[in-house]
C-alpha cells in the first residue's frame, strides 16, 4: 500500500471478498476533497468500486487468494478516477447481457457491470479486459445522483 502523492492512492490487495468492504471504506475515507459530494461518494462511487473489486476477485482472479488486485485512485477537486486491475485473462464486457431485460430480471447475477455503467460517468476496459477504469465527475453537469441523468 502506498500513497504516491497527496491526491493519489495505490493499493495492492489479495483476493478475498471479505476485504472488499474494508477496502472501499478506506478509499472513501481518503477522498477528503470529495466530501462535499456525499451522495455521489456514498452511492455512485461506492457501488462502482465495490462492483469492480467483486468482479476482479470473483471472475478475474477466480477467487484465487494467491492472486492480487491493484487499485489506483486519483482524486482531484472535480473528478474521481479509480482503476482496478486483476491477474486474470480478461473478459469481453460487450458480451455481458442487459440484466434489466425481462428475460434476465430473474437471474441472480450479472448486475455489477450494469450498475457501474449507470452510476459512473465513464467505465472503460483495457484491451485484455482485466483492468477497468471508472470516472466520476463531481462537479455539476457530470454524472448523476440517484440514477437520474443530469
Amino acid at each position: 500500500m502506498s500513497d504516491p502523492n497527496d491526491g493519489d492512492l495505490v493499493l495492492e490487495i489479495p483476493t478475498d471478498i471479505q476485504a472488499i468492504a474494508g477496502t472501499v471504506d478506506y478509499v472513501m475515507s481518503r477522498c477528503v476533497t470529495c466530501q462535499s459530494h456525499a451522495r455521489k461518494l456514498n452511492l455512485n462511487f461506492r457501488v462502482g468500486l465495490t462492483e469492480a473489486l467483486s468482479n476482479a476477485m470473483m471472475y478475474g482472479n477466480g477467487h484465487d487468494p494467491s492472486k492480487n488486485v491493484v487499485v489506483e485512485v486519483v482524486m482531484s477537486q472535480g473528478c474521481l478516477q479509480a482503476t482496478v486491475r486483476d491477474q486474470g485473462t480478461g473478459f469481453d464486457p460487450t458480451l455481458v447481457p442487459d440484466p434489466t431485460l425481462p428475460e434476465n430480471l430473474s437471474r441472480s447475477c450479472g448486475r455489477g457491470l450494469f450498475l457501474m455503467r449507470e452510476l459512473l460517468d465513464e467505465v472503460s476496459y483495457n484491451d485484455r479486459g482485466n483492468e477497468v477504469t471508472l470516472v466520476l465527475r463531481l462537479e455539476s453537469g457530470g454524472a448523476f445522483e440517484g440514477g437520474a441523468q443530469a
Partner: protein
Amino acid sequence: MSFQVSKVNDVTLIEVEGQLIVGNRQELKQGVLEKLEGGDLKFVIDFANTGYIDSSGLGVLVSLSKKIREQGGELRLSSLNEDLRTLFELTKLDTLFRIADEKEQALEGF
C-alpha cells in the same frame, strides 16, 4: 451484517442490520432457506438498518424470491432507503418485488 428473525402471525420477518454484500450474502441466504425448508412460506425482509446492498446482495434476494415462489410462497421487502430504492429502480428489480415503505405495511394483509 447481522439479521434478526421473528414471526409475526404466519409471516417470517427478517430484519437486516448492516450492509448486504458479496462477503456476507450467503449467511442471509442460508438463514432464509432454512426457514423455507422448515415450511415457512411468507417472508418479509426489512432493510430499515441497511445502508447498502451490492449486486451480489441483490442477486441473493432474486434467488431467494425465486425459490420461495417455487414453493408457493412470497418474499416482500420493506424500508429501503433512498440509495437502495435507486439501485432497485435502476436494475428494475422494483418490478420483481413488492416493496413497502415500512415493515408494518409489508406485513399487512400478507
